[in-house]
């Protein structure tokens, strides 16, 4: 096959063998079935294990199809997402001193799936389930920049400026909002990735514009780093980039 990537071909062959075996084969049998050296097969299986495409029975060492594969067709459950992100969202709010939100795309809508209050013990209302505009919020921009309609395609409705901003969000790995959604309100958000690298959510802080950005509109670096670090930690929690 011209242009084919060998390891992907091999991994696909392994998945077919594992699927057909109903979880009865160990590494030796699988290597034999696909006609590869045991060490090669082993390292491919390890990667497949890491991304959740196969599972290994701890006592017998045999392989079966993993839940990651079974979930490929469906989105990550939003309640699951909240549970997995919760510790890191809390830590981000505590460290930054700002309110934290986690958002995901439900169909075409940007929906808040988790909200941690600003840690000042003032009266605040839980905003889980609230839709956000995707063009004017940092959380929305991250999701929009990485949603399939926009990767490698030209947007139809938004202008060239917006397209450029989304390309920049993709390239640098974070998005900002500076009063576009609500006057005086600022936001910084970064993408959360699932096991295969797909962006599944955005995580961000919101607070007074002046607290998040300097006079030139540049994000203040401790906050920015906290946001990207937290998003990275949640991604790792979801299995992105290995344990």
């Amino acid at each position, binding site marked *: 096959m011209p242009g084919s990537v060998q390891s992907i071909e091999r991994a696909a062959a392994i998945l077919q063998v594992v699927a057909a075996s109903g979880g009865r084969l160990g590494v030796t049998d699988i290597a034999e079935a696909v006609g590869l050296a045991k060490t090669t097969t082993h390292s491919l299986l390890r990667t497949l294990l890491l991304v959740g495409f196969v599972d290994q029975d701890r006592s017998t060492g045999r392989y079966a199809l993993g839940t990651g594969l079974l979930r490929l067709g469906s989105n990550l459950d939003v309640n699951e997402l909240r*549970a997995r992100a919760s510790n890191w969202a*809390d830590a981000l709010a505590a460290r930054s001193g700002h309110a934290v939100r986690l958002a995901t795309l439900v169909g075409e809508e940007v929906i808040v799936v*988790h909200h*941690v*209050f600003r840690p000042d013990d003032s009266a605040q209302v839980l905003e889980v389930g609230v839709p956000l505009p995707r063009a004017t919020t940092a959380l929305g921009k991250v999701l929009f920049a990485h949603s399939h309609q926009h990767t490698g395609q030209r947007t139809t409705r938004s202008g060239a400026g917006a397209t450029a901003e989304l390309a920049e969000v993709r390239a640098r790995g974070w998005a900002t909002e500076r009063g576009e959604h609500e006057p005086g309100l600022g936001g910084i958000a970064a993408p959360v990735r699932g096991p295969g690298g797909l962006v599944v959510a955005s995580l961000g802080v919101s607070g007074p514009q002046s607290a998040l950005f300097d006079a030139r509109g540049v994000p203040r670096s401790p906050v920015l780093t906290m946001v990207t670090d937290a998003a990275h930690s949640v991604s790792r929690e979801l299995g992105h980039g290995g344990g």
Partner: protein
Amino acid sequence: MADRYVLAVDQGTTSTRSLVFDRGGRMVAVRQREHRQFFPRPGWVEHDPMEIWANTQRTAAQVLNDVAGRGDVVALGIANQRETTVVWDRATGQPVLRALVWQDTRTADLVSELAARPDADQVAERCGMAIAGYFSGPRLRWILDHVPRARERAERGQLLFGTMETWLIWNLTGGPDGGVHVTDVTNASRTLLMDVRTCRWDPDLLAFFGIPAAMLPEIRPSIGVLGVASALSPALPIAGALGDQQAALFGQACFSPGEAKCTYGTGSFLLQNTGTELVHTRSGSISTVAYQLAGEPVRYALEGSVAVAGALVQWLRDGLGLIGTAPEVETLARTVSDNGGCYVVPAFSGLLAPHWRGEARGLVAGLTSYVTKGHLARAVLEATGWQTRDVVRAMAADSGLSLPALRVDGGMTTNNLLMQFVADALDTPVVRPMVGETVSLGAAYAAGLAVGVWSDVEALRRNWHRAAQWSPSPARARALTEEYPKWERAVQLSIAWGVP
């Protein structure tokens, strides 16, 4: 100057977690590993102590590595699943059998026999709680009765007893090679073997349960240096240890009498600080040790223990296969708008507070062909809310105090449907703190206080911040008050079902 960090190990029923906290009480690293659950017979629940020890070492080493170069880890605090019982060989470090977990009901017959003895009344009088299979003393007795030569070897000092913190501390401080054999006072208070006023092993209770004193660990304050965790790092002091529920009370900064929290994990546990006063209970809550700072008097708490909360969700996942992960229960429950008339009483191993009926068994009531898995998921979540209402009511009767707001924590608090239901069922605001891992935070606070990372509990109180609040809706609260008798009837049925 490098930051000063504190390491906490939360050895729970389902997993072992290691976390690192900074001086602001903020989590900077976390690693977690589940261990296997063994169910060798109906009602029996076991863990492999060696697996738990390995998971402790592994996750602790991982977080120490995660923060390496960022700060100095100056102390270790341990919180543990309570009442789970381990007996091991002092010379080899090998357990004589797997740990008997707090949910295990194999001691039921032994407990009825003991409770029927004419001298059984002294037990509650001395240790603060009535004889029940939930506590660790009867499990220890069962092991001595069933493992060949165990009693004889225990009397000769060859076997050691411990709850999980004791087992981990002994291994961390050298194991067979000079390991320190200690327990903290909160864990000791759950054995039925300790005098709850003097906080010493009670010779009459030991005689009553037939336990050789030679195998018991030394009882120590929860907050104070216990030894050096040489298995992890050459100079890391173990400076705090508490039962997980007491640790959560501490982590929630409930330092004053009247302050209370409820933790929603495998079970759910409502604890209310009662200060230096031991409250005499009549309504189904129990009196337990809350914590003790070295050199200070013991602080007590009232407790409402519910054995099955998150475990019912796990059953929906593993037993019925209706969901793939625990949080998906909320997704399933939101496919319908009410419970469809369905109630689940999760008396898997009897009912603890406020009923204390070991013979009760679980049931699903109100089934009609209308009921779907969505209704079942709702009933599963509501069971946790109703049980909270049961224990809050019992505790209010025992303490004479009502709760202005309920502080919550634990894995189930990410479930918004459940937390709103709890707020409505109690007609009380429910608040979650910024650190959901309050068990670990409490262990870290204990250890950090002992080595001077924090000066006093007031410094800890300032770290508490509200991360979320669920406010009751008056209309829902009224509706649930009307519905409550149905739940109570389902509970009575589950008790009746278990009566032989």
